[in-house]
C-alpha cells in the first residue's frame, strides 16, 4: 500500500578505537513509510548520531542492509552516496549551516547546483517556491546575518525541500531555538508532513516527539521502543497556548 522509503535490516555499525571495538549500533531493524513523521529519540551515546549519519548516507553500516527509496546503500562508493544525498535526502542541522554572506535564495539553490539535470532558471524557480513554502517569500535576498534564528532555520528547511527529497532528515533542528520559535518550526514541519513529505527527526527532547506520528527510542545501540503516536499534538495549538510575548 504505502511505499516504504527506508528499509533497515539488522543494521550494525562498529568503530575501531585503537584496539577496542565500539559497537555503536547493535543490529537495528525498522522501516519508514512514505508520509510518516518519525522522531528518533535517545540520550547521548545511544547511537542516534550514528543512526543519523547512516540514514543520511554520510556513513555506511558495517553490516546489515539499508535501502532508501529502493536503492541499497551498502555497496555504493563516495560519489554514488553524494548523488543519493543530492537527490533523495534533505538535510536540516541544529546550527542551520547556511553559507555566510550569501542570500537566502542562493543558500536554497545550493543542492541544485550539484545536480546537472536542473537548469539555472528551474533552479531559481524551485528555490523561490521552497522559500515561499516556509513563509520567507519576502526575504529572498536577505543574508543569514539579517535573519533571526527561526528564519535561518526556515531557509535551511527550504534548502532541504528544494531537491524534492524522498525524506527530510532533521538533526536536533530546534536545538538552537527558544520554545516559541521551536514550536513555530515544528508546526511548519507538521504542515509539510501533511502535504505528504516524509520527515525523520532526530532529537533528545521528549516534547518534540509528541508532534510526530511515530517515535523510535534508541538506547545503547538498540531499539528500546518503537511506537505510533495516536495522539499527535498540534504544534500550532501549543504555540497558541504559550503566553503572549511582551510587545
Amino acid at each position, binding site marked *: 500500500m504505502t511505499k516504504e522509503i527506508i528499509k533497515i535490516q539488522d543494521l550494525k555499525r562498529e568503530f575501531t578505537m585503537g584496539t577496542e571495538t565500539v559497537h555503536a549500533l547493535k543490529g537495528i531493524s525498522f522501516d519508514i513509510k512514505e508520509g510518516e513523521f518519525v522522531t528518533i529519540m535517545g540520550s547521548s551515546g545511544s547511537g542516534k548520531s550514528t543512526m543519523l*549519519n547512516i540514514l*543520511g548516507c*554520510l*556513513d555506511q553500516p558495517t553490516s546489515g542492509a539499508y535501502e532508501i527509496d529502493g536503492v541499497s546503500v551498502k555497496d555504493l562508493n*563516495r*560519489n554514488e552516496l*553524494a*548523488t543519493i*544525498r*543530492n*537527490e533523495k535526502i534533505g*538535510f536540516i*542541522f541544529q546550527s542551520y*549551516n547556511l*553559507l555566510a*554572506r*550569501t542570500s537566502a535564495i542562493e543558500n536554497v539553490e*545550493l*543542492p541544485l*547546483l*550539484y*545536480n*546537472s539535470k536542473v*537548469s539555472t532558471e528551474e533552479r531559481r524557480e524551485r528555490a523561490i517556491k521552497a522559500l515561499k513554502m516556509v513563509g520567507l517569500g519576502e526575504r529572498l535576498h536577505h543574508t543569514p546575518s539579517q535573519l533571526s534564528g527561526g528564519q535561518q532555520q526556515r531557509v535551511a528547511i527550504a*534548502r532541504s525541500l528544494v*531537491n524534492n527529497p524522498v525524506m527530510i532528515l532533521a538533526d536536533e533542528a530546534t536545538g538552537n531555538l527558544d520554545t516559541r520559535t521551536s514550536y513555530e518550526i515544528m508546526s511548519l514541519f507538521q504542515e509539510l508532513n501533511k502535504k505528504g513529505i516524509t520527515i525523520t527527526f532526530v532529537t533528545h527532547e521528549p516534547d518534540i516527539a509528541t508532534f510526530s506520528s511515530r517515535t523510535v527510542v534508541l538506547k545503547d545501540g538498540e531499539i528500546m521502543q518503537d511506537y505510533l503516536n495516536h495522539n499527535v499534538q498540534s504544534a500550532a495549538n501549543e504555540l497558541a497556548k504559550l503566553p503572549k510575548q511582551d510587545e
Partner: protein
Amino acid sequence: MRLLNLFKIAFKAIVLNKTRTLLTMLGIIIGVASVIAMLAIGEGSKESIRTTISSMGSNMITIRPGADNSGPARGSGGNVQTLILEDYNEIKKQASLLSYITPVVNGGGQVINGANNWPSTIYGVNPEYLNIKAVGLQSGSMFTDAEVKSAAKVALIGGTVVENVFPDGQEPVGQMIRFNNIPFKVIGVLEEKGENTFGQDQDDVVIAPYTTVQKRILAIDYLNQIMASAISEDEASEAVTQVTDVLRSQHKLIESEDDDFTVRSMEELISTFSSTSEMLTVLLVAVASISLLIGGIGIMNIMYVSVKERTKEIGLRMAVGAKGTDILMQFLIEAILISVTGGLLGVILGLGATVFIENFLNWPTSVALYSIVISFAVCAVTGIFFGWYPARKASALDPITALRYE
C-alpha cells in the same frame, strides 16, 4: 553546466574575500610584471646592440693579423706584420662572396689647421671603405682609385674633427689641413654616425688613401687589417671560410698550424655581445621567477587557510550532494582564477613598467610576445600546482567530521 556552476561558486568565494584575494594576487602580479619588464629590458638591450653593430656595416668582415686574441699574453695585432698587400690582392681575386674589400692601415696623430689642432686617428683605405662601413658623405666626394694609385694627399674628415679644427663653421672641403705635419687637402666630410655601442666616437676619424698613409705617415709596407663586406648577411660565414682558405694558402700554413690571422664577421660580434646580454637577461628573469614562485606559495598558503576556514562549508556542500571532485574543482578553479587574474594584472603592470623604463630611464626595451605568453602560462600552471594540494585535501575530507568542525 556543472562546471559553470563550479565557476560561479569559486567566483563568489573570491568576491566575498576581495581584500584577501587581492593581497594574494599581489605576489603573482609583481612576479609576472617583473618577469615581463626584465625580459623587455634584456630584449631591448640585445636589440640595441644588434642595431648599433649593424649600423657599423652589417655584412662587414674584418681580417686582422695575429691569432684570435682571446688567450692571455697575445698582442693586439697592431704590431704583427704578417698581413700584406699581396694578401689583400689575393683575397680580392679569389673570394667570390665579397662585394667590397679594402686594405686598412691606421695610426694616431695630430690634425692641425692653423691654430687649431686635435688628436685623431687616420685610416688609410681605398674608396670601397665607405660602402663597407655603410657611411655616406655630408659634403664633398670620396677619393678615386687614381688618387690611391698616386698616393695623393687628400683626406676626408669626420664630424668631430670638423668641429675641433674648423671651429668657426668654415666649410672644410677644399681647405688644407696637416696630419702629423703632412699636408692634406680636405675633399669631403663624412656623415655623422655618433658613438657606437662601445662608446667609441665614430666621427673622430680622418680618411685618406692607404698608399698615402702607408708611405707618408706610417712608413710601413704591411697592413693593419683588411675590411670587406659579404655580398649578403647570410653569406657572411661562408665568406669568412673563403677568406680563411685564401689566407692560409697565402701564408703557406700547413694543416697542423693555427691561423696567424683572425677573420671575424659582424654576426660573430653580435652573437658575442648578445650572449653577454642574454646571460644578464637569464639572471634577471631568474630573480623575477623567484618572486613568481613566492607568489605561488602565497596562493597555496591562502588556499590552505581557505580550506581550513571553510571546513564546515565543505561538509555542508558534501551533505547536500557535492562529490569529492566538485569540491576539488571548486578550490582548484578558485586558485586558478586568482592566479590567472593576477597574471593578467601582472601583464598590464609589466607593460606599464616597461613604458616607464623606456620613457623615464631611457633604457631600450622591447616587449617580446613570448614573454607575455610564457609568464601567463606559468601563472595558470602555478595556480594548478599550488592550488592542487589544498584542493585535494578539501575534497578528501570526511563529510561527517567536516560538518562537526568548529
